[in-house]
């Protein structure tokens, strides 16, 4: 154990808390999503929950956070179908070269609670629907995800997340960000900016606006467009709260000072 680790205070739930503190910590640590909510999330991802009888049991395992993975038991309860949501997300990396199909994300702007307006089970396609696009998961040993086979296996319509963002939207957004990052890492800042522009025009309210803005700032700086970068960075810092990205932009801003 490192010195820093040993310097950490002992966890309050272990020792040193007053009875009221203990009660509140216990309450916070034992809150669980209902079984129905857990099932809804799993359905939306096209995966199965372990058959444990209740959400509480799943949560207890998670809360312990020390249990060894039980992949076999999880796998034994697989649903007989896989949703397009998972497939689309898994192949996100394989879509690097694909331009988003101008399917604009309809996520509400940041700060709007309407982004999470209830949509009943929209992300959970019925098994019967998906049965029309069966996936032969055991046909051959995997040599990595193959984009063509995955795309072929997709059901006609991607499941839609609450707020209207589809899984393929997310995959496309991630692909564009990956492309921008790769270009930036490869020293091609102009290409990074092009990917940023593609993202911003295709997904004006996309899920990764802050990440894209940070990439843009870095690309502009590398291109020597310091005035634009600075203006954008200041706007970024005004709009977003503390976090790793904010720290990064702050560092970029400092590094870009004349």
């Amino acid at each position, binding site marked *: 154990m490192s010195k820093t680790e040993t310097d950490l205070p002992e966890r309050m*739930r272990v020792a040193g808390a007053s009875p009221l503190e203990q009660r509140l910590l216990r309450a*916070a640590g034992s809150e669980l999503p209902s079984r129905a909510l857990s099932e809804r999330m799993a359905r939306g991802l096209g995966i199965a929950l372990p058959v444990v009888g209740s959400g509480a049991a799943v949560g207890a395992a998670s809360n312990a956070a020390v249990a060894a993975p039980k992949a076999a038991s999880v796998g034994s309860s697989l649903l007989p179908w896989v949703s397009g949501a998972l497939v689309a997300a*898994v*192949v*996100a990396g394989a879509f690097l070269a694909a331009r988003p199909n101008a399917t604009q994300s309809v996520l509400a702007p940041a700060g709007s609670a309407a982004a999470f307006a209830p949509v009943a089970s929209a992300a959970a396609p019925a098994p019967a629907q998906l049965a029309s696009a069966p996936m032969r998961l055991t046909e051959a040993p995997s040599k990595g995800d*193959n984009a063509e086979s995955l795309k072929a296996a997709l059901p006609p319509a991607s499941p839609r997340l609450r707020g209207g963002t589809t899984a393929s939207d997310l995959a496309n957004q*991630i692909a564009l960000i990956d492309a921008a990052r790769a270009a930036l890492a490869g020293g091609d800042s102009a290409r990074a900016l092009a990917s940023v522009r593609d993202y911003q025009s295709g997904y004006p309210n996309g899920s990764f606006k*802050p990440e894209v803005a940070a990439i843009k700032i870095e690309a502009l700086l590398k291109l020597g467009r310091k005035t634009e970068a600075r203006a954008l960075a200041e706007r970024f810092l005004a709009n977003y*709260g503390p976090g790793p990205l904010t720290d990064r932009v702050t560092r970029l801003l400092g590094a870009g000072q004349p």
Partner: protein
Amino acid sequence: MSANPVTGEHPAPPSEAARRRLERMFAEHHVSVWRSLRRRGFGPEEAADATQETYLIAAGRLDDISRDSERAFLIGTARRVAHTLGRKTLRWQLDEDMDQRISSARDAGDEHADLQLFDIALSKMNPELAEAFVLYEIEGLSSPEIAALLEIPLGSVASRLRRAREQFRDAVTRIGRRLQRIEGQP
């Protein structure tokens, strides 16, 4: 699944291993992810949606996630999703009507009352400290996990946790006093 007309090869099927891994990650960590979003002020359903979005992102990045950092990756991604959705800091503005909220919490029944009181205490803390506090005290993350997730030095983790604990204690003490006062009222 048809053969490639050019090569004649059959495309490889999607990775079963990836799907199983995501299932395992979901079984092991979705409660922590969901709960971390709840502590940022999301309602149960909202937190479920954001959790789902978090796992969709993770599904596209499985190759980048080491086995040891799955939970930190997921909670970190959930944090970014929350930022994207406008929950930059904990959304609890309770200064004005703390007494009323404490009363409501007490009326909500034991199970929920303590949770609401915890959130009230959290609302009284510096958001950065509260975040580290929740990760350490509630979700049980290690200091390296927290350091990686928050992108801060290990030493800063210990420092934040100590200050967080002081603030939490102060807040709970005040809540305790108000509870006594409320209970003392006719």
